[in-house]
């Protein structure tokens, strides 16, 4: 199963991944139309320390605590991908309370969303990886 991995030595902290993610999941044909002048709600975010930066998105854990903790039965894991059913989510934020990586955040309507590897959107493969200028984010198999 391919997953998204980060290499913090190579991350420039440019935040392009956040924009590419927000655009890929916007359903809009044009990036400027989708994002310009609006607050963005990406499913990946840059964490920044004193001398480091790196991108964080869902780890698609082997035994995901968010799936077991969801009080609405809205999070499931299918074919190795942890997914949220937005119709079932009640925005209780229990998944935020339990995710050890801080990988989930609400969308513009307060409904939870997370990285689903762009498998269902227009990009078809992780947009964060595709657009990373320094290959600090990769999509690959690393032994199950």
């Amino acid at each position, binding site marked *: 199963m391919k997953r998204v991995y980060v290499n913090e030595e190579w991350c420039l902290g440019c935040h392009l991944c956040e924009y590419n993610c927000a655009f890929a999941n916007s359903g809009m044909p044009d990036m400027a139309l989708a994002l310009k002048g609006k607050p963005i709600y990406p499913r990946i975010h840059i964490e920044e320390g004193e001398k480091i930066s790196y991108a964080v998105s869902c780890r698609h854990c082997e035994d995901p605590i968010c799936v077991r903790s969801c009080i609405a039965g809205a999070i499931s894991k299918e074919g190795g991908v942890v997914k949220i059913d937005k119709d079932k989510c009640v925005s209780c934020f229990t998944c935020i309370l339990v995710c*050890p990586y801080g990988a989930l955040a609400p969308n513009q309507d307060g409904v939870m969303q997370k990285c689903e590897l762009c498998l269902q959107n227009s990009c078809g493969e992780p947009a964060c990886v595709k657009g990373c200028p320094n290959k600090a984010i990769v999509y690959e198999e690393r032994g199950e």
Partner: protein
Amino acid sequence: MKRYVIIGNGIAAANCIEGIRSKDPEGKITVVSEEKHPVYCRPLISYYLEDSTDLERIKYRDDGFYDRNGCEVLYGRKAVRIIPEDKKIELLDGTLLPYDALCVAAGSHPFVPNLQGLKIVKKKFSFTTLDDALALEKAIDEKSRVLIVGAGMIGLKCAECLADRVAEVTVCDLADHILPTFLDFTCAAYMQRHMEDHGVKFALSDSVVSFEAKKAHMKSGAVLSFDVLVLAIGARANASLVTDAGGAGGRGIAVDECMRTSIPDVWAAGDCVESPDVSCGARKLLSNLPNAAMQGYTAGVNMAGGSAVFDKAIMMNSISFFGLHSMTAGTYMGELFEEKTESSIKRLYTEGDLLKGFVLIGTDDRAGIYTSMIRNRTPLSSVDFEMMKKAATTAAFSHAAREKMFGGMV
């Protein structure tokens, strides 16, 4: 073929089924369900009444769940006795069900005190099951005055969902502040003001002495009039099936980290069990949905011959009232770090080299990073805790720890 029996059909039971099936695709699973519904999201009954979910979406698993997992569900049936020497359980109608592995996931029941005059109150409800919510929905209209006894989570979620549907909602509690099990006076006062701004009235530090048909006489001398009464005083674990059969337990069924009870071939999970709280070491009822799910799954794996351990239970809660979120976890002990703003409260409790607990109101970006530190007993000396006080971030961990989190399988 192994025969599995699960008593209960809630969250712990559903996860137990998934745990069994992760190891044994063949064995026969029988579920004894007192309620006549397939497994549903119990905490969502208030969301149902405020129209944020419906009878379809409130289902915890899809319609094919039991069939796909080869389960027979006995709806409307109640288990009354475990007979460990015969490895059978007895149902209320006398049926005997044999088991090779039994999971007691019987949940809890609302505690209703024997208050004077309670019998003559016609419209009175508990608020823990879907049937409670459906019955309550029929009893209310826009003119109803609702009195809720109990300012815990259940009482307040009930108050929230009724606020826009009825004329008046009043919550009374013997405690001097709301949510007494997980907020202290200051934090609770903040949440209470927010709820009052949305029309909920409170009568705290006061308790009902007696009822008339539509009146509650309070200890303070006050008289509260109501049309509909909701009793949300507290819950009691359904532990007696196991303790009556000679199994260990106190307020809940005693289980080990594999969810085994002291009776051979009998496991237990969910709101009916008590287990060690990893944040303080004490054995407790740790009733919440995530624990029930993780315990149920663990029990299922072990019932089917696997080896799973769940030894990281803590109390934790994420709840909102009228849009204001509160997240709490662990035990409030040791040294306190507090940060307040106009619209938020953050409290972190540390003891020695460990984070023990937290309260976050109106601020909750990545709270799970704090929660995992409590559950994993992450030494504070291994992270930049000064950085962590400002905001929960994995950037405060060591490079090596981050390599593990983001560079490999987790």
